[in-house]
């Protein structure tokens, strides 16, 4: 431990804005990569030509940019369909029940694939990259899986909640996330009542969402679960409902406060803990900067967050302006998540997102199946994205993106469970899918396509925003030199080779 005076002095010196002479093309690229999903040189230049404040505002004040993405057409409550299912389940024969369930599963699977495509498209082509990046953060944070929720409408709704409150107020987001139908199912709050309070949500809201272990007691969990009773789900109309008859009106003591507390009190009490600000700001720093903050930095981050009323937008403005965010060990030292890898690649290559089935298969193969995180803790991230097989898969998927061929996916990549069935039909559908590939005329000038030196420089600038090591650059030259004259196929292979380096896997 450092002496207190020293600690305070360190904290006070932190989060100063980056000086204007350090703002550059490289720093603009860093901002765009982390606050969004990266982009082609023209996008980076646009940011670099603004001053730093304006550049951050261009990403963060996204309400000023219209986003007219239409909702999926099934994204609405559907009591009629659910009533029919209920009737069959109550009165139907075994065959009818089975048929109805199969039809329902098929429909849900189809919608879930559509939903993935809908969101990926927003990340790849939507006008508000930072908003979508925050939706991705909140999805990983609240880590709700369609495998248990089994209703695409709920998953979409939760995704929209994250979008609506992406940079909003923490207490409101935490409360709304708790009352969100997908969450009510995911952590069993929908089954809780005063006779049998279910502790799942009460536990995880403190352990995983807002405080972290060691900042509450088992007693708080039990009392919190009692207070949360009454938060329930109207399964027919597909929305949150408060059911007073399920609520425990007795006296509870939760995180030091006593009374007939309810769920809103629980959320307010949690967010009021000083630890709450430390916890969520540390997690956000890790998401954007790629490593957990030191104690001093965390104190400074939490201070900014609380001083701004637990609102994320002003907090993020300070974060993206800070010197610390542009430090040498932060820039280009974060392992790309599979989503960042895929979306970033199509943005940098200015090509189309692969058809949804292909994107879905790639992301599953690379370890980030959207709407199906591995568990309540979400994705571990960082170096755990990289294993020998996910790395080779990235290298091979790069070939598919660049050349416009199908990636080496197998039925297993689409199976619902390990060793399970379900992949064969998808494989058939895949055979009809067409990939786009990279259009070289769009991303390279005639000069770049004719001169090896210019080409190698241009590719590094576009894909890495920094240089490869000398020996790697030599290897790339060696490849091009083995060709007598540069044709498009060779240039595409060179692009794939740059993407098949350790350096391309970080951002």
């Amino acid at each position: 431990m450092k002496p207190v005076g020293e600690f305070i002095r360190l904290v006070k010196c932190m989060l100063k804005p980056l000086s204007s002479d350090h703002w550059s093309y490289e720093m603009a690229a860093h901002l765009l990569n982390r606050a969004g999903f990266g982009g082609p040189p023209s996008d980076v230049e646009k940011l670099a030509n603004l001053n730093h404040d304006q550049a951050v505002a261009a990403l963060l004040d996204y309400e000023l940019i219209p986003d007219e993405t239409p909702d999926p057409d099934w994204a609405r409550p559907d009591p009629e369909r659910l009533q029919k299912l209920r009737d069959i389940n109550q009165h139907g024969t075994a065959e009818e029940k089975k048929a109805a369930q199969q039809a329902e599963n098929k429909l849900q699977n189809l919608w879930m694939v559509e939903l993935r495509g809908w969101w990926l498209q927003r990340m790849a082509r939507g006008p508000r990259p930072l908003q979508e990046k925050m939706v991705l953060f909140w999805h990983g944070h609240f880590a709700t899986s369609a495998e248990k929720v089994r209703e695409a409408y709920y998953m979409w709704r939760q995704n929209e909640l994250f979008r609506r409150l992406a940079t909003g107020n923490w207490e409101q987001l935490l409360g709304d996330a708790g009352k969100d139908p997908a969450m009510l199912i995911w952590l069993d709050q929908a089954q809780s009542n005063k006779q049998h309070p279910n502790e799942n949500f009460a536990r995880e809201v403190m352990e995983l969402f807002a405080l972290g272990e060691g900042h509450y007691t088992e007693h708080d969990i039990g009392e919190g679960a009692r207070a949360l009773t009454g938060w329930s789900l109207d399964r027919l109309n597909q929305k949150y409902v408060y059911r007073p008859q399920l609520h425990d009106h007795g006296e509870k003591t939760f995180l030091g406060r006593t009374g007939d507390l309810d769920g809103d009190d629980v959320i307010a009490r949690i967010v009021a803990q000083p630890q709450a600000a430390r916890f969520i700001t540390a997690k956000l720093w890790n998401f954007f900067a790629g490593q957990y903050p030191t104690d001093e930095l965390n104190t400074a981050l939490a201070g900014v967050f609380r001083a701004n009323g637990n609102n994320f937008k002003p907090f993020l403005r300070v974060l993206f302006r800070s010197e610390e965010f542009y430090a040498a060990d932060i820039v280009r030292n974060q392992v790309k998540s599979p989503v960042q890898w895929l979306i970033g690649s199509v943005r940098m290559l200015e090509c189309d997102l692969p058809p949804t089935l292909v994107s879905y298969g790639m992301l599953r193969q690379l370890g980030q199946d959207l709407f199906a995180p591995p568990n309540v803790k979400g994705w571990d991230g960082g170096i755990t994205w990289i294993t020998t097989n996910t790395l080779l898969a990235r290298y091979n998927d790069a070939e598919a993106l660049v050349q416009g061929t199908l990636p080496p996916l197998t039925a297993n990549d689409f199976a619902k469970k390990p060793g399970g069935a379900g992949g064969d039909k998808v494989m058939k559908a895949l055979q009809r899918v067409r990939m786009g590939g990279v259009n070289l005329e769009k991303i390279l000038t005639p000069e770049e396509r004719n001169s090896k030196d210019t080409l190698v420089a241009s590719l590094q600038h576009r894909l890495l925003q920094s240089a490869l090591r000398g020996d790697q650059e030599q290897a790339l030259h060696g490849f091009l030199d083995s060709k007598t004259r540069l044709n498009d196929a060779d240039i595409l292979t060179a692009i794939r080779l740059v993407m098949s380096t350790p350096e391309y896997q970080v951002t």
Partner: protein
Amino acid sequence: MKNEITLQTRREFLRTTVLGSALSWTVPAFLANTLTALQSEAADSATQIVTGKDATILVVLQMAGGNDGLNTVVPYADDFYHNARPKIGLSAQLVLNLNGAVGFHGAMKGFKELYDAGNLAVVQGVGYPNPNRSHFRSTEIWQTASDSDQIEKYGWLGRYFDSACSGADPTVGVTIGNQLPEAFFARTPKGVCFNNPQNYRFMSNGGATEESYKKLNELEMSSPTPDGGPGMTPDENSGGTISSLAAGMPMQGGSAVDFITRTALDAQMSSDQVRNIAARVQNQAVYPGSQLGNSLKLVAKLIGGGLPTRIYYVSQGGYDTHTNQLGTQQRLLGDLADSTKAFVDDMKAQGNMPRVLVMTFSEFGRRVSENANGGTDHGAAAPMFIVGNKVKAGLLGKYPSLAPQDLYQGDIKYNVDFRNVYASVLESWLKTKSAPILGRQFEPLPIV
């Protein structure tokens, strides 16, 4: 000759000695280069420390979907069983009798043969406290070995890799399939997975592309190395840890790129190894043409080819038999028994049977009473099977009572916590302490 180490040896050496342990990618490049100049004899000894070619091997076989244990190891002489299952209960003629009270499902001839040969143990009534009936959650509990109200980030095999296999070859854990099971999740990711060895490689038309890929994924080659001084010799007992190697040398912060570079080397090497073995080794038994059969066939080749793997993971799906269970389970259990038997035959022919242990599990058993659709719903405890040369063959533990007053919400109660089984396998078979891996001490059972 001592200074002329082949490229292959150099890579292996770097991987296992310097770049293998948890902190490995923090090693400065110049130090790594120094080590390339060390003697090849040292390199060879270093590669053998963690995973030697004679080490024991565990094959984990997941029966996904929740296998109905009652119709697998059938208590055919129990009236409670037949009362609860008027339609799908199996009579004495349909089972392979074991002890006059219970018997294997009739499709499991392969298991009966293994049982009679003293190679198969049945651990009866395995489960855990406060059972969860969700596939998703219960699978997670088995994979992470957590209590049912605790969420664990890492898998039990991942924690084994973290605690016992630092510095090991990446192929220390191999999953046949396309996704790593949660059991493999680890602080330092380890283990490879592939379904088809042909896909586990950098795909290209070879030639200049392949060559350039290899060069782009090399460690930095830089200036001549400084003379080896004190602290530069690998500690032969530890396999050479960073701290001992780098004693007295300035450490740089580890970068993400360094970590990925190491993984890229691992990927190149293991992909070559795996494809080489798959093409070279011949199976010496006839397997069913099922997915499980193919998986075990591949595992057998990899074992025969000497891959330094401690854990193989294979799975078989389809056990979620809510409707018309009889036909489905007949097919699956037949496949399970035949595939396993073929695998054992193959191992015996290879002479590797003494090194191999197979352990099955399923996320839960099923309800005692059949449902209206000729099937069974999600339940709790079920048997596990352990196959090997040195198992305490026979029926272990007590068969859970089916008397209605002994059931909990229609399910049999477990007699053995699955973590006691894991503890036995970890301690008696993999020869490692189980408490750090399972979170606390579970008493090992006399299984192996």
